[in-house]
């Protein structure tokens, strides 16, 4: 169903808002499939418009050639089964590991070697050029990219244990 408001900017663009009335999603063999107004798509891809601020709203749905098929305004607009399938797909795409505490950051020869605790246990990784590799989403929320391109997240710098904060402070 095309939901088009004719006032403001929304009247200018053609955008299909996806909800449980027109779309359903399913997880099949590791892929997300979609049925939209009677058309079946074997595989669709999801992208968050605002991955940090709005993890469950404004989600773009594209085909494998990245042609946008529509947008989910809120996952709540979908049926429960679709919602869970989409959540799983989003978790796969935006795979990040949350750092709960930092045991040590050792700086050597242009690299920092991190020893951290994640929900899954202890982990070590190396970061090159902390200035670029640490992205501040807000002053409290950080993303850290290691040399392999893995992504780690600190959801709240303020909530870190004091010792962890002391290790990290130098790079903020």
């Amino acid at each position, binding site marked *: 169903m095309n939901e088009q408001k004719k006032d403001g900017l929304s009247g200018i663009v053609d955008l299909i808002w996806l909800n449980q009335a027109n779309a359903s999603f399913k997880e099949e*063999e590791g*892929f997300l499939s979609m049925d939209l107004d009677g058309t079946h798509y074997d595989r669709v891809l999801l992208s968050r418009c605002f991955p940090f601020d709005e993890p469950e709203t404004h989600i773009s749905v594209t085909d494998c050639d990245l042609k946008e098929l529509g947008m989910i305004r809120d996952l709540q607009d979908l049926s429960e089964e679709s919602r869970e399938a989409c959540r799983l797909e989003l978790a796969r795409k935006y795979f990040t590991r949350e750092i709960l505490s930092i045991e040590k950051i050792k700086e050597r*020869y242009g*690299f920092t070697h991190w020893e951290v605790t994640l929900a899954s246990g202890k982990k070590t990784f190396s970061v*090159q050029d902390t*200035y670029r590799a640490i992205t501040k989403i807000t002053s409290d929320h950080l993303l850290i990219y290691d*040399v*392999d391109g893995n992504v780690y997240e600190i959801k709240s710098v303020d909530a870190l244990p004091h010792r962890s904060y002391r290790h990290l402070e*130098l790079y903020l």
Partner: protein
Amino acid sequence: MLTLSQRTEGAEKIINTLALNPEDIVLFALADLNARYDEQETVLVATKENLFISDGKQTKTYALTDLQKPTIEEKIGTCALVAEYQGKKRVLATMTNSRKQECRLFVKYLHMQMDKGEITVDEKDFRQEQFCPKCHRRYPDPNRKVCPDCMDKASIVGRFLTLAKKFKGQIALALAAMAITSVLGIVSPYLSTSFFYDQVLDIRGTFYGDLLFVVTLMLTTQIVTILLTMFSDIITAKVSAKIIYDLKCTIFDSIRRLSMRFFTGRQTGGLMTQINSDSNGIYWFFVNGFPTFFSSIIQVVAVFILMMAIDIPLAIVSLLPLPFYLYAVARVIKHQRWLHARSYARNRSMNSVLSDSLNGVRVVKAFAREKEETHRFNHYSEQASEMTKKITYYHNTRFPGLNLLIYLSTLIVWSVGGWMAMKGQITYGTLMVFISYVGILNGPMFSFVNMSDAFTRCVNGMQRLFEIADASPDVLESEHPVAMPEIRGEVEFRNVDFSYEKGRKTLEGISFKIEAGHSLGIVGHSGAGKSTLANLLIRLYDVDSGGIYIDGMNVKDMAFEDLRRCVSIVSQETYLFAGTVLENIAYANPEASKEDVIHAARIAGAHDFIMRLPNGYQTKIGFGYQDLSGGERQRVSIARAILKNPKILILDEATAAMDTATERTIQEALERLSENRTTIMIAHRLSTLRNADSLIVIEKGKMPETGTHVELLKQKGIYYRLYQLQLSALKNIGVEE
């Protein structure tokens, strides 16, 4: 069996659960996520018949005969092994980026097994070792084969010293001067205390009453110290500057040799900072750090020997507080370094906000955001100033404490030494010389603590610079290049595959031929790989497979000089060097006459605007001088290429930044120019390419369509759709083709 990942204990257990005959396993790799994206070791094992994927709890078996197109799909932070199985595409395994390379190789060799029934190991895949051969730990940066723990510092310093070899005479002189100065630094207090009191003032002294002698001696010592210090400082500064100059020349020469891939893998700004800051770090270590350290060592050793020689018990008492002092100094300096690093980071943030805001001043003003920008800057400025305050506070509170420690150790010498003097065990002069020496000993402690840090920074800097010097270009001239001073200009691409990054094909199976003197238009969406074709032809990069031929000769066999002389490229990225317009146009052909430059500029449509510049062809342009518009820059760049008079001309969006009227004028001139020379034109605007002898369409790295303008329109494929789109877009704005 080809083992692509380390066979961990966990992996062995999982493999055992598969109950396979070890000899049947042909391929093994380890993924690190399970289907639910939980971290869990998952083994990928291939036999000649099957592919097994198991995390120990769940095992999936895929018959290789039913498996098609296995590939690695990249996501953000993770990858997936995807394949078609029994006609349906599915995700077989998932992994973090840490396992990406191993799994990518797994897929490559799995393909080999499926297609050929056997695996032939390609040594190139294993040449880029990921692990330190000594400690078997992973390199922190796969592009930089340096293990921080096993780095051979001695050999790096040794290599640096070979640069210093030609100055060995001057260095020996400087070191000798430093050694004498250090010793004189100890003699001076001896003369003014022990010698003065015991030998000159004391009636029993050898030089009793000879004040003039002792004062002259003291003055001479001082003058000699000053002269020698000046001498060694001048030599050190001169020699260090010369060594660093040599090092920078070596580095620049190496950079010049390196191929494009080296630069695209690094930020050019970062590279410049690296060369500058590293060489400055090395320079200051040798000008400042090392001489101070060297003098300190000599002083400490000499003072220690002298004190022991004069009075052993008092020497021991005097030296007792030193370890505590060293510890306190180390603590203070460590924290101070931390504070400075923090301050540096905050200042860097403040400066980047400042530069961001100033560079975007037009936008700031246009959107009336001055207040917000001021607020943003104030926030960072306040943080930086807070840090400066902390440093000053720390300095003002800790250093008086350190001074107190020095004073306490002096007090100990006063008390014990005073008591010994009263007992007549030592003279008053001896007491005074001990007090002076305790003061001298405290100074070098700072130098010792700072030294380790300065040395680490210096060695790291050397290592990084040598790394650039040692980097080998991946596009190499053939060992026996074929000289081709004259070419006809026939160009052929034969089944060319190329990727900027491993595993992500930018071009696949590209084949076409352009007869000498003919023109070819390349059409396609942004990012389709059009400009890459031009980069490959002039060997900024080398093809992964297939070949590129000029007059039937593989470009890899041609001499670089001939190849780049006969091919000229005008790219969408124009770069003008700081210099005059004349110098910029004549860059490609410095021998060209001024009239030729004018002709080239006229053909490129640059002459008219150049003549409007205040100093005509001698107007300074480039960074910091006269600003040219995008279209003007592009015209200068075209003139530069025309002046080179190449047999093969590549125009890569050469007229993109110009208005339609100017573009038409230049296009006509270029068409005249392209007679009798092979021309490759890359453009978005299809009208620009309509007259090309043939056209190819590049779409997602492949070449789905080829033909003339009319033929491609008849095919009603991608070209036709693009043409229709552009036509209607032009009609919409009232322009008729």
